[in-house]
């Protein structure tokens, strides 16, 4: 039978190959057979990129940058070390949605599941439409104008990146893709080629902005969120808290997302970046987020990853000056059928730097939560310290958790520790709460929220409230828990 | 007769000035008590005297029998005859009590060619006296010890290593009444004309068991008042405020 698999035949064939040709063995290795699926014409190509640049009426340097990024994107293979990305539909992805098409999301087209969740969460209809992508802007102009005046007087620049390139080209050029160059990874290169939307925030020396700045307040932005590029610069001695995203599910027809966030925390400055994402469950979410942290500066990443089909996100801090510090707090919720491959990176490049990473994950049904991290102490990063703590909660018997930290220590005076635990909701705790009259669902959500407590208290109130509701909702859907 | 002379000693930790010119002399046969409110610098003084690397000496001198110890390493100070019983001794996992003490003894008293067996026998006698079971010999230094056990072990080290000047930093904390008596007895037993004591304490508890001839009050990094036992009694009744206000 011809179709029957024969080991001997396979062996013979392989041996024949070896004898007769100079094929390098990489060519027939089974793990590395990816070929770019698009070359010209479909999905993304030079023409598409040039068109984006034309529409935006960009300066020449940006156009050249986009084209260079495109080359890098096409040359880089899809990473195979993480989750399965074979489901990304490169060809049928819209790489750029023209602003006038944004409203094309008809409210009627939004899946009932999403609408249902909105209703359960009690989101007002106007906001629902914004979140569903059927309205481009969220009307917050009134609030925005007053605040804008106060900030502008202090020299704060806060606008969408497209406008910033036009209005403050030199300032933008100083920071654009310095922390995340297009060569960094395939998805960063993709963003470089087709980026659109995102914020530019510059806080001058010594200016403290006490109120968190939210994307809600950004005007004229393109609300695609698909290939955003955000830059936050906290100049020397300044202080800022930037918040992005929303906990309510956000519907998007496009299945591939790849944002870039670059944060520059200058000497003695403090920056906190909070993001919560809840994309619909068709989305591959592949952002690259990175901070450069200078002398005695402080960077805090607070993140909640709730939605999407697959998320790969590792906010990184490059601790470049003495006494620089980074703190990551992250919560991932891997719902049914989804994969959260999240983590953090901290690179200690200077003496007396410190980092602390706390990651919590919850897996529901067959959800898969992965922690992946890199911690490096370079030679010369004397007396630097780092601690990494990962805790995973598996709700159901098929839930999965994976932990892959990677620690490289080249400095003998540095101190490093990593700890990870995986567990489930304890029967004892559950029984105790139920014996006090709580239903099983209530008791379970209470325990889950307790598990998340140290992250929850760092998240802005309105986010925490919504996240609570969302987790209860997800748990409620499951019925019996355990 | 040994003499520890502390002159105009100033020291800082993490660039914060804690000691601001301390003067104190402890001779053989003398028992001194150093008292003071929290944060006065009492424990800092102990750590500075034994040479803790986190503390920087910014001025003054420490001399033992005329030898300048100000910039010496901790082991050089120990070999010169200085001993500090720590307030919270650190655990050293995997290093056995017996190995530790034998190694220390050999380096402090190289002249004593005591055999291993003799040394361990001697150790066992003293362990009984301070109330540590023989089984502790093969345990790791301070690892999993209760607060009281740590203090007993500090006293054991003192009698084994035979220092000339002994500094006891809050030796009574973590000890119950019986243990306190046991420790105090061991200290009294060890006390003679060739040994001087500096007892650092916040409360007066230990001083009921070991009577000091001299009492010094440390406030804000300086010796604010010297006196005798009556001073410590007054402190017990009135606290420290009256000295600050004086």
């Amino acid at each position, binding site marked *: 039978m011809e179709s029957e698999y024969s080991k001997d035949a396979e062996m013979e064939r392989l041996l024949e190959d070896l004898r007769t040709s100079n094929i390098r063995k990489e060519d027939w290795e089974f793990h590395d057979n990816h070929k770019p699926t698009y070359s010209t014409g479909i999905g993304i190509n030079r023409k598409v990129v040039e068109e984006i640049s034309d529409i935006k009426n960009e300066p020449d340097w940006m156009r050249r940058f986009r084209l260079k990024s495109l080359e890098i994107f096409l040359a880089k293979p899809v990473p195979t070390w993480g989750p399965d990305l074979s489901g990304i539909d490169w060809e049928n992805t819209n790489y750029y949605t023209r602003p006038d098409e944004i409203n094309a999301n008809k409210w009627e087209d939004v899946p009932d599941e999403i609408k249902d969740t909105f209703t359960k969460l009690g989101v007002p209809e106007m906001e629902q439409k914004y979140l569903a992508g059927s309205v481009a802007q969220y009307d917050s102009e009134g609030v925005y104008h007053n605040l804008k005046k106060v900030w502008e007087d202090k020299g704060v620049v806060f606008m969408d990146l497209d406008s910033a390139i036009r209005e403050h080209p030199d300032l933008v050029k100083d920071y654009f893709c310095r922390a995340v160059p297009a060569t960094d990874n395939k998805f960063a290169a993709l963003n470089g080629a087709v980026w659109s939307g995102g914020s530019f925030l510059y806080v001058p020396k010594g200016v403290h902005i006490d109120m968190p700045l939210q994307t809600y307040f950004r005007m004229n932005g393109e609300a695609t969120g698909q290939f955003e590029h955000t830059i936050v610069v906290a100049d020397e001695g300044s202080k800022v808290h930037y918040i992005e995203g929303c906990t309510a599910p956000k519907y998007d027809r496009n299945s591939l997302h790849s944002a870039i966030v670059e944060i520059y925390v200058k000497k003695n400055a403090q920056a906190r970046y909070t993001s919560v994402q809840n994309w619909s469950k068709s989305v591959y979410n592949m952002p690259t987020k990175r901070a450069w942290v200078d002398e005695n500066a402080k960077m805090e990443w607070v993140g909640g990853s709730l939605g999407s089909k697959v998320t790969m996100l590792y906010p990184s801090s490059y601790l470049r000056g003495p006494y620089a510090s980074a703190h990551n707090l992250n919560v991932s919720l891997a719902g049914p059928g989804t994969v959260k491959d999240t983590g953090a990176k901290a690179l200690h490049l200077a003496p007396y730097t410190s980092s602390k990473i706390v990651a919590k994950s919850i897996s529901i049904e067959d959800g898969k939560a992965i922690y992946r991290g890199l911690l490096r102490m370079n030679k010369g990063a004397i007396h630097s310290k780092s601690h990494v703590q990962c805790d995973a909660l598996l709700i*159901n018997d*098929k839930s999965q958790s994976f932990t892959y930290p990677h620690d490289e220590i080249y400095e003998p005076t540095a101190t490093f520790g990593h700890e990870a635990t995986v567990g489930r909701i304890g029967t004892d705790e559950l029984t105790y709460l139920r014996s006090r009259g709580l239903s099983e669902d209530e008791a379970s959500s209470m325990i889950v929220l307790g598990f998340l407590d140290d992250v929850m208290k760092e998240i802005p109130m309105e986010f925490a409230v919504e996240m609570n509701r969302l987790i209860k909702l997800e748990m409620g859907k499951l019925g019996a828990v355990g | 007769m040994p003499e520890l002379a502390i002159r105009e000693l100033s020291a800082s930790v993490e660039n914060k000035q804690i000691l601001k010119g301390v003067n104190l002399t402890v001779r053989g046969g003398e028992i001194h008590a150093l008292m003071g409110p929290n944060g006065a610098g009492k424990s800092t003084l102990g750590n500075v005297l034994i040479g803790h690397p986190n503390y920087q000496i910014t001025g003054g001198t420490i001399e033992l029998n005329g030898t300048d110890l100000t910039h010496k390493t901790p082991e050089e100070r120990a070999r010169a005859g200085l001993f500090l019983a720590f307030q919270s001794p650190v655990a050293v996992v995997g290093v056995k009590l017996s190995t530790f003490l034998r190694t*220390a003894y050999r380096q402090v008293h190289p002249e004593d060619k005591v055999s291993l067996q003799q040394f361990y026998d001697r150790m066992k006698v003293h362990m009984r006296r301070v109330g540590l079971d023989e089984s502790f010999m093969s345990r790791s230094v301070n690892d999993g010890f209760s607060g009281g056990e740590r203090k007993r072990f500090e006293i054991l080290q003192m009698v084994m290593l035979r220092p000339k000047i002994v500094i006891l930093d809050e030796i009574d904390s973590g000890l119950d009444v019986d243990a306190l008596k046991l420790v105090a007895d061991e200290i009294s037993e060890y006390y003679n004309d060739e040994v001087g004591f500096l007892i650092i304490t916040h409360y007066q508890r230990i001083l009921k068991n070991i009577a000091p001839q001299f009492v010094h009050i440390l406030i804000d990094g300086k010796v604010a008042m010297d006196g005798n036992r009556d001073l410590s009694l007054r402190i017990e009744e009135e606290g420290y405020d009256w000295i600050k206000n004086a």
Partner: protein
Amino acid sequence: MENYPETLKTILNDEAYGYRRDAFLAFLKSPVRDYKESPTVKDYVEISDKDLEKMIYGEISDTSADIIFDQDADIKIINDEVTASDQLLQKGVIVCDMITAISRHKLLFEKYIVPRHGTERIEHLINSSWRNGLFIYIPENSRLKIKIHNLSDAASSFAYKSAIICGKDSQVELTDIYGSTGSGNGIQGKNVYFFLDEYSKVKYHYLQDKMDTVTDITFVRQYQDRFSEFSFFHINHGSSRVLFSNESRQFGASSDFRVYGVNFSTNSQKMDIRDSSFQEGVGSSADIQVRGVVTGSSSTIHRGNIDLEEIAIKSSGFYDSKILLLSREGYANSKPGLMIKNNDTRSKHGSSISNVDEEQIFYLRSRGIDLNTATGLVTAGFVGSIIEKANNQEFTRKVYEYAEGLGINAFLGTN
């Protein structure tokens, strides 16, 4: 490597040919970097294809005349020559070399070895190219203490495969010591497979102290049936490059796997020490504790996965790595992993890398102990507390000897 298939067909065309061929196919299919879920493609111990060729073709140098075996060794192995004491053979234990075993104990070979393949690339290659090895069969209900002393010339290169089959209810304590004679930079690979029948208990004491020019590649696998227990004490001290991979295959319910590992990398040694559990058995447990000490310009990486499969409910897995990094030029990495696929389990891992604790050193110094001695004591305590659990005086002595021999005076965190 191109000519290897011919070698396979001619020289290695013995009764294990089918097994060897499958292993070679598996090798061809394996990715070059085969450690599970690696986020960074980086080999910490670089072993080139040229090295591997040297290993598979083999090159046995004559060992020097003055071979000194441990007098109390029950099994003495020099190159592929296996000598077992009469006492041992009288107890019904089968001891022979692997080549003899595949013809004389064909049934055992087919029952235990043939169905079990490796997981890693080089392991597959060794399974294909082994020239010989040690075969031990321990009958049911045996109570045994066996000491094995392996010697080979440092210039020799070879791939060996050893199999130790422990019958039902047997209890065995094995001490397995690897050393070198002569000098040279051989590439020496070995797969050591244990097959534990139900209720068997094995204590395995492993010491690798070869010449510091040799490359040592070792894969240890434990196929554990239900209620079996495996305790593994390993020390890696010798060789210039060490790739040591230890991974259980706990298919049996309630199987227990314990590892206490210690390694010392000094001078320019490079060590990749992997200890993992793979648990499919219900109620299985794994507890792994490894310690490493890095001096000179050497490097140590500790890796270890706890892999709890979907069906392994009521199981637990723990991994703990600690590395002391004592020199400016040295480096230390750790890469523990948890792969938990059902929620009715308990698992945890931890890793730390640091210099000796400054407070501990200070405490010892305040009692008159000099800096070097203090560091030596703390280091010895750090590794000793792990290996002492073996209750093997020879091993305890060795560990303290190694710790003291480090000559830690080049650099310390303070002063």
